[in-house]
């Protein structure tokens, strides 16, 4: 009778012991798989957060003395640095809007100001502080980007004048002689923030304008509108915000920018903005540590438990070991039988744990503040657990067998008498 048949017969006929090990393996593997899925969800959330927390640095010109703007070359050089996702600047002017020669009016009904709008020129309006902080939200269309000649305005204003995406408007500064600049409606926004609630919106209502009277245009449009009033040389940009794709790398990117020899750092300075990331990342780091610790503890405790149970099981089979050795079965064959029995159980328990963990992981994930649908047990998790678990089980059986296998058959049998 070969060891495979012996292993199968033992597993089948000693079904209570088999069931105990099976249940234990199923529970442990389910927990470990769930833990891995939660850890991955945690990591993913952390990575997403690093990309969306608006970590940025601002390069500002010392305009007070030099009137030296942030040049297009500087912007291109810094934007080309690995990790810099986008950049933006904000230039402001008070403007009038014309819809087919009709002067448009905003929400402020006071005489003399009812036809004034607060216009912001951007390289990319998506990175305008008003949109970044969530004070405004684009509901239709797209953001305006450099040179696209677009304008974004409040959706209520568009309704009031029967305007929609693709329609054209004209924008100009307040004086009658200022040039009219045509632009196409690229997007509409809604106001999310309460203009009075500075803390809640993280917006700074530094202007007296209602958010509904804000409009956003691209930099080329803004330059054309502001041309009569530009006093500095060049593009007139005195500061540019650069946004990084990974907040964790902000420091190293800023260091790289500062190392640039082509920029005269006597004329510019850098300020860093990553308060949101810093605040959230510490709580993320705490959760990550907790999840990692839990996985390690679960795995270690489980392995100790399984080694103890396997050890007890193999010790209880000392007599059988002695008999098998006495009838001429070699020690490696006896150990291999015990290994095979454990692996037979694992072969059933691991795939079932994969299925059960798909259900359990989501539930456990919610305990760590994760959305159940984000906690996903992947085939990679399964492969990892199956391979490492298999190796650990084999090691556990070998360790458990050592004390018995070191004895001679006579010693084993005489201990049983």
């Amino acid at each position, binding site marked *: *009778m070969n060891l495979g048949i*012996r292993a199968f*017969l*033992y597993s089948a*006929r*000693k079904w209570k012991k088999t069931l105990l090990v099976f249940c234990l393996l199923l529970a442990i593997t389910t927990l470990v798989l769930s833990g891995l899925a939660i850890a991955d969800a945690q990591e993913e959330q952390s990575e997403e957060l690093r990309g969306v927390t608006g970590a940025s640095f601002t390069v500002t010109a010392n305009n007070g003395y030099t009137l030296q703007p942030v040049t297009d070359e500087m912007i291109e050089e810094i934007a080309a640095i690995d990790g810099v996702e986008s950049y933006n600047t904000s230039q402001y002017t008070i403007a009038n809007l014309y819809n087919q020669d009709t002067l448009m009016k905003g929400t402020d009904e006071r005489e003399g100001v009812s036809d004034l709008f607060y216009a912001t020129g951007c390289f990319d309006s998506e990175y305008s502080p008003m949109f970044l902080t969530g004070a405004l939200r684009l509901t239709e269309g797209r953001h305006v980007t450099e040179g696209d000649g677009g304008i974004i305005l409040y959706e209520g204003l568009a309704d009031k004048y029967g305007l929609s995406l693709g329609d054209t408007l004209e924008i100009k500064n307040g004086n009658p002689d200022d040039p009219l600049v045509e632009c196409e409606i690229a997007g509409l926004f809604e106001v999310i923030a309460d203009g009075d609630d500075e803390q809640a919106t993280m917006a700074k209502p530094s202007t007296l304008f209602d958010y509904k009277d804000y409009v956003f245009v691209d930099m080329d449009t803004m330059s054309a509108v502001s041309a009569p009033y530009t006093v500095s040389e060049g593009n007139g940009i005195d500061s540019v915000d650069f946004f990084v794709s990974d907040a964790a790398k902000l420091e190293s990117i800023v260091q790289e920018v500062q190392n640039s020899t082509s920029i005269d750092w006597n004329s510019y300075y850098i300020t860093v903005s990553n308060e949101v990331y810093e605040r959230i990342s510490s709580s993320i780091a705490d959760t990550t540590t907790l999840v990692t610790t839990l996985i390690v503890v679960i795995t270690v405790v489980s392995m100790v438990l399984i080694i103890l149970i396997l050890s007890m099981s193999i010790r209880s089979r000392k*007599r*059988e070991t*002695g*008999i*098998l*050795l*006495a*009838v*001429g*079965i*070699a*020690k490696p064959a006896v150990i291999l039988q015990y290994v095979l029995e454990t692996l037979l159980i694992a072969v059933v328990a691991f795939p079932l744990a994969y299925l059960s963990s798909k259900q359990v992981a989501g539930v456990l994930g919610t305990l760590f503040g994760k959305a159940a649908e984000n906690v996903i047990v992947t085939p990679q998790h399964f492969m990892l657990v199956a391979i490492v678990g298999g190796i650990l089980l084999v090691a556990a059986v070998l360790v458990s067998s050592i004390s018995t296998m070191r004895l*001679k*058959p*006579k*010693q084993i*049998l*005489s201990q*049983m*008498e």
Partner: protein
Amino acid sequence: MSIMEIKQVGYSYDNKKKVLKGVNAEMEQGKLYAILGPSGCGKTTLLSLIGGLDSPGSGQIYFDGQDIAKTGLSDHRKNHVAFIFQAYNLIDYLTPAENVSLTSKLPPLPILERLGLTKEEAKRNVLKLSGGQQQRVAIARALASEAPVILADEPTGNLDEDTAQDITEILKESAHKMNKCVVVVTHSNELAKQADVVFRLKKGELQVLERVQDGAAQPQSRRNNTPRSERRAK
């Protein structure tokens, strides 16, 4: 021609208590050997050494002229000897038929039936059999292994008189009809009476007892403790 030869075998527990002191013996196929002696005198130890369950502290044990320490104890246990224990030592999750098949490729049922078990009994859990039936299974396992040497440690110790008599007959037949070398450690005078050669282990030394007419055995001179091969040389 001896199949087992024991030369100057010594053994002590924990290197302190010496239980075997230069034991010599020869054993042939086709004979039933009995080893007598008081409890704790080292009978089971000697049987274990002959069967390769342990290694002697000194001396050698030969199977068919080969030192079993050199050919390998595991190989010796697998190919040359088969054990029958007082406690039967059957694998409890296997049926009698499967226990017999542990070491043999022969069909188990004919052997079990020859030893008095029915087909149904051969498929039961071994623990549900009586002591006598379990011992028959153990003997069947030994016989099925086709090992030329059968080593039995008090095989009738746990059995009633009738069953013990049956087992004794089976062992005797195994020696005389199946040409096995059967070595039995026993306290039973009845079993010893059936043996062809009776040894007594006393104070670590093995004596061959002479058979007398009523079947009882008497000690031969101590000189007989010397192996036959050495006596011939003298």
